[in-house]
């Protein structure tokens, strides 16, 4: 293939160092710099040098630090790249940034490096994955016993209930309907009582009477924990046309982040999906009314409910109604999570790949290929919005896919 000609499509406009470099504090290490500090000093300096306000940065690139840096700076970038492949990471960041700028996705890319190789030598510096530094966010949250995602997500459900007058029972409908889809998918863990003692049909009462994980969320408000492997190949149109498999077109794409730590989440009933979806809709020239099916990250019922609102598929506070009123169910007007979701199909920790595999199957007409589904799972939808949520309602990626 011929590489795109991106020459002159972006320029480096400044490059600065942190205030201290080398052996700050000398052999005695009377001063120790943290990696975080080195990053931020350099960022402040390059902002001052170029006159580009930090708030204008819309792409953040670093070797493993991007969400922490963006949060620290209060940024909500629309391009997040944290490629960490050793010393050449930064050359690669430049190339990625060039592609992002040339494509029109962002205007300003920040590439940042901070590494306390001397100050924390032998103490396992961050990035080396050791014990050295502690981040201020960690200091602020470590004491309070929070363990695992459900512990945090439950706070969002309580807030949603408070602001919109919703109830945990409203969200239980998401579990019930998603289970109906799983019952059409023999690969789903909860396909039937034969595949799992907890499998098969469930009711709102079943959801509400299950054991409490983090009030108000019961076990059935939470996703499964399973194994999964998945892979996707993309190719340019000339190649895609010649293959025996069907092409599914990416017509819209967006990404954004709200925060990294939940303590920085501004509104516990809203995620950055409203921004990533806006980008995807604009790129596709589509609006929420045009969407025919959705694959929505359902780590918890609250995740799916809020995300449906952020994607514009339902008004604020009313996302759960898509399930409660049956629209999201098999045969409904807007099928959602046709594989049975993270709630009843499979959730390995990072569920984004499962979303992609099912979206491809639906859009290529292969959702009942005999491996993945019994009759009834394939929909008539000609497009599909796919939204992944990472962290604690933190980062989101939205795609809009279309049938050939």
């Amino acid at each position, binding site marked *: 293939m011929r590489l795109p000609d991106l020459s002159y499509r972006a320029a480096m406009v400044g490059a600065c160092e942190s205030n201290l470099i080398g052996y700050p504090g000398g052999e005695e290490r009377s001063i*120790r710099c*943290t990696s*975080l*500090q080195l990053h*931020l*000093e350099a*960022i*402040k300096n390059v*902002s001052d040098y170029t006159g580009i*306000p*930090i*708030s204008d940065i819309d792409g953040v690139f670093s070797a493993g630090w991007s969400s922490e840096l963006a*949060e*620290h*700076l*209060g940024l909500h970038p629309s391009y997040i790249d944290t490629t960490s492949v050793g010393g050449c990471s930064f050359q690669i960041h430049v190339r990625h940034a060039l592609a992002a700028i040339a494509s029109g996705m962002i205007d300003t890319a920040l590439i940042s490096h901070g590494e306390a190789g001397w100050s924390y030598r032998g103490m396992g510096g961050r990035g080396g994955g050791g014990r050295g*530094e*502690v*981040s*201020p*966010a*960690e*200091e*602020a*949250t*470590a*004491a*309070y*016993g*929070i*363990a*695992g995602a*459900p*512990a*945090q997500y*439950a*706070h*969002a*459900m*309580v*807030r949603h209930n*408070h602001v919109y007058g919703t109830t945990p029972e409203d969200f239980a409908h998401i579990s019930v309907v998603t289970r109906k889809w799983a019952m059409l998918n023999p690969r789903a863990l909860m396909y039937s009582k034969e595949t799992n003692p907890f499998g098969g049909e469930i009711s709102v009462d079943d959801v509400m009477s299950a*054991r*409490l*994980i*983090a*009030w*108000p*969320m019961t076990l059935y408000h939470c996703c499964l924990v399973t194994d999964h492997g998945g892979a996707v190949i993309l190719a340019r149109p000339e190649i895609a046309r010649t293959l025996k498999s069907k092409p599914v077109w990416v017509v819209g794409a967006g990404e954004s982040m709200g925060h990294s*730590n*939940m*303590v*920085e989440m501004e509104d*516990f009933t809203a995620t950055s999906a409203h921004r990533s979806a806006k980008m995807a809709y604009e790129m596709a020239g589509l609006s929420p009314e045009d969407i025919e099916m959705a694959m929505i990250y359902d780590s918890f019922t609250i995740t799916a409910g809020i995300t449906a609102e952020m994607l514009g598929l339902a008004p604020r506070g009313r996302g759960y109604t898509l399930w409660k009123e049956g629209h999201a169910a098999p045969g409904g007007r807007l099928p959602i999570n046709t594989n049975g979701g993270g709630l009843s199909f499979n959730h390995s920790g990072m569920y984004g790949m499962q979303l992609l595999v099912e979206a491809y199957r639906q859009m290529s007409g292969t959702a009942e290929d005999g491996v993945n589904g019994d009759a009834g799972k394939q929909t008539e939808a000609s497009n599909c919005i796919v939204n992944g949520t990472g962290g604690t309602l933190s980062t989101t990626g939205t795609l809009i896919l279309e049938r050939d």
Partner: protein
Amino acid sequence: MAYEKPIPRQGQHTKPFWDGAKEGKLILPHCTECNRVHWYPRLICPFCHSNKLDWIEASGEGTLYTFAVQHRLAAGGWVKELPFVTAFIDLKEGDRMQTVLRGVDPNKPEDIKIGSKVKVEFEQANDDIFIPFWRVVES
């Protein structure tokens, strides 16, 4: 009795906060340019991106933004305290703090009211670290 729950490790950019905690004071990072308080501590103001930061003594008052009751998942010694109430507190001076909420019954979550007034208190964990917790004082 020894404190058996997780104890934050003090980093090197937060000394005034932990020094204050030792004296029962809530000391918060503050931007001298935009005059806003932020939490958690930053090296650059997350609102205006100035690096001219200092620390102010806060009132130790706030309101309950949201909460949850942990029934199953807990880190370290908190396992023995299940169920307990975790919460996010809107600080009187601005921005938000996570905590374990006191003065509430984890078995009666319906009695806990968002918007309740809360006050900070500190519990000694070791010689250096006093941990802030928030207590409902008026619901």
